[in-house]
């Protein structure tokens, strides 16, 4: 994701309320090598509305703190099914004020 888009997302996420479950990310990459070597599209990096996924020197990394819990990353990873997606523990994650 280009840095200006990343900045746009971050500005928006700053408006939101979260209770982050520190140290217990609810989404995980099953096998990082699959993203790095087999997946050429790496669409999660573009399609995640919260910009949780980023690409650094060919590898994909994930930080779930700003996750909006929409499910997009799981659904679009339909070639390699490499996303281990769960809801956060009860009470954690995004807390919409308006929704």
């Amino acid at each position, binding site marked *: 994701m280009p840095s200006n888009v990343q900045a746009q997302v971050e500005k*928006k996420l700053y408006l*939101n309320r979260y209770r982050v479950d520190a140290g217990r990310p609810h989404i995980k990459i099953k096998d990082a090598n699959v993203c790095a070597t087999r997946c050429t599209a790496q669409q999660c990096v573009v399609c995640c509305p919260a910009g949780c996924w980023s690409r650094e020197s060919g590898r994909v990394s994930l930080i779930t703190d700003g996750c909006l819990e929409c*499910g997009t990353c799981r659904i679009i990873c339909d070639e390699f099914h490499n996303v281990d997606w769960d809801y956060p523990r009860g*009470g954690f994650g995004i807390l919409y004020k308006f*929704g």
Partner: protein
Amino acid sequence: MSEKFDVIVVGAGPAGNAAAYTLAKAGINVLQIERGEYPGSKNVQGAILYADALERLIPDFRDSAPLERHIIEQRMWVLDEDSYIGGHYRSAEFARPPHNRYTIIRARFDKWFSDQVQKAGALLLCETTVKALLRDVQGKVIGVEVDREDGRIYADAVILADGANSLVATRAGLRQDIRAETAALAVKEVIFLPKETVDARFNLSGQEGAVIEMLGSISQGMVGTGFLYTNKDSISIGIGCMLSDLKRQHLAPVELLERMKAHPAIAPLIAGGEPREYAAHLIPEGGYDALPQLYGEGWMLVGDSAGFVNAVHREGSNLAMTSGQMAAETLIELLREKRPATAANLARYRARLDASFVMKDLKKYRRLPETLDRQRQFINDYPALLNQAAHTMLRVDGMDKRHKEKEIFNAFRERRSLLGLLGDAYHLWRATR
């Protein structure tokens, strides 16, 4: 927590609340489980509330529900880069009570709805995520496992109202996961403005509201639609596109939203506003042909987890409430007859749905998702052609009107050909008849 209930409802959105409310009102011992801190904290919608579905549950809801504005004007815009063409329907009839549609803010509304459910006698357990379904040796669903210590809770039947992703049903193998081809991602912002400013910009007064539904260049060639809804002192603005298109397009959802907000027809409506929240949510838009099995041994799917969305008319929460109510009524009937919640008996839920607007509307538009996916001209060509036609006809530049008509017709024929135009008319008729 090794307890037994008559019914467990998973989720406290419109479908889950409608189900739990109906059950509790009938004196049934119902437990509702919600993963959010409070009902609504995980829920996202435009949002428009259609009064009819809620009125059937709570006839006097208007006395206490947190409603933003009643809608007196609906605008439909087809946009090109610089312009829009469209229709507006505004009626004084819509301003007279009882009002037919309202804008709402879901976090507030869901909290209120949940209060009514609890007052009716249901037990609500928040901050609790259902991890799995419990089954007996025959495979009948007999309860749920939650993320709390000793988290097995039993019931005679489980209603799954756990939303678009419906992880619980998917993991239990009751349904396939949603696919990129049948799901839309919607991103949305709530932008605050003084009430007087909203009133002035949309020609409203009191509690009157206006909504705009949009399609065309804002979706950047993808199958998708945008919306702008007036709340009391804020505007909800968002855009949704099919995930399969978004995958191909290399466009970040946030950029899609920002480009839409910058459209010359939209920017002045939200100018000076203060964004206070950014949200994203999946919408199951596969329609009738993407519906999963809706019930089985001891379980039923309702609302988004069943895929009950009428994408054409932007309806979902009303289908959710009606399906939740029907699932509950089915169980109430079976409990009174002292029959178990077997798949054979729960077939009555499907029969109720089939006889209602829920299935009738989904059936009517069953071909539309496929038509829009394959016939890209409806997204890529017609919005521009319609806008150009208006531009040509309305611009006074010395050219006579017969020439202008010819120019417009030629533009259509060049882009679509004569046979193409006929074919398009047929496709559209077939997809919506």
